[in-house]
């Protein structure tokens, strides 16, 4: 989904950096709230709430229509990419 939206926005795939968070220490150092986390220029496409702990867990996303999902809403990714291009 991310690659599709990057392509649609004209952003080269070479600009995608995938980081594997393997340990609790890695998670702490990266301020990692769970998998998957997608950041555009360092900003989370759907910033986690304060109650979401740092750690090796699954992210719980809420789609724009209210559904719970393991993935962010495609529109949130699109918007984040758009904002990133405008900066």
């Amino acid at each position: 989904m991310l690659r599709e939206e990057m392509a649609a926005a004209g952003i080269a795939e070479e600009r995608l950096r995938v980081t594997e968070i393997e340990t609790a220490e890695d998670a702490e150092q990266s301020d990692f709230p769970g998998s998957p986390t997608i950041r555009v220029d360092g900003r989370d496409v759907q910033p986690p709430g304060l109650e979401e702990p740092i750690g090796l867990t699954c992210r719980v996303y809420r789609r724009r229509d209210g559904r719970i999902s393991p993935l962010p809403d495609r529109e949130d990714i699109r918007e984040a990419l758009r904002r990133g291009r405008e900066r």
Partner: protein
Amino acid sequence: MNEPGMAIGDKAPPLALPDTAGQVHELGESSPETTATVVYWTCNHCPYALAWHERMLDAARDYSDRGVRFLAVNSNDADRYPADSLEAMRERVGAEGGWPHPYLHDESQAVARSFGALKTPDVFVFDSGLTLRYRGAPDADHDDPSQGASWLREALDAVIEGREPERPESDPVGCSIKWR
């Protein structure tokens, strides 16, 4: 790690676990009117389990008058995942106004291991003799509420009518159980 897990046709292993009110539930205590028993793994923080949650509760309500007993089990390591502690389970059930079935705490993870449960959710359907008749996902797509736990319902309809489910197995889809 896990035992090899159950195969279709196997008898259910023992299960005696406390719910969020401290009452212990056992598989063998089903009433003679019980036509089928559903044991499924779930938890508080997995997005797949949450996405399927209402569908599972709806199925439990819809089949309650057909003699089907539902038991939800949380086996996640609450030390590493506090959102899955017994206290958090209790708070969640309260915040949701109660569930139509018990939410059991498998603190030692022994029950998950004996069933060979892998994911949240992971659904096991037993007939009245506690023989496994279906194991897998509730339906084909966590992302589509209109699926309505159709695979689970098809299996229950078959078991209640004394037939073999046409789809006895599917791959459970979700987060892995968080082992100690």
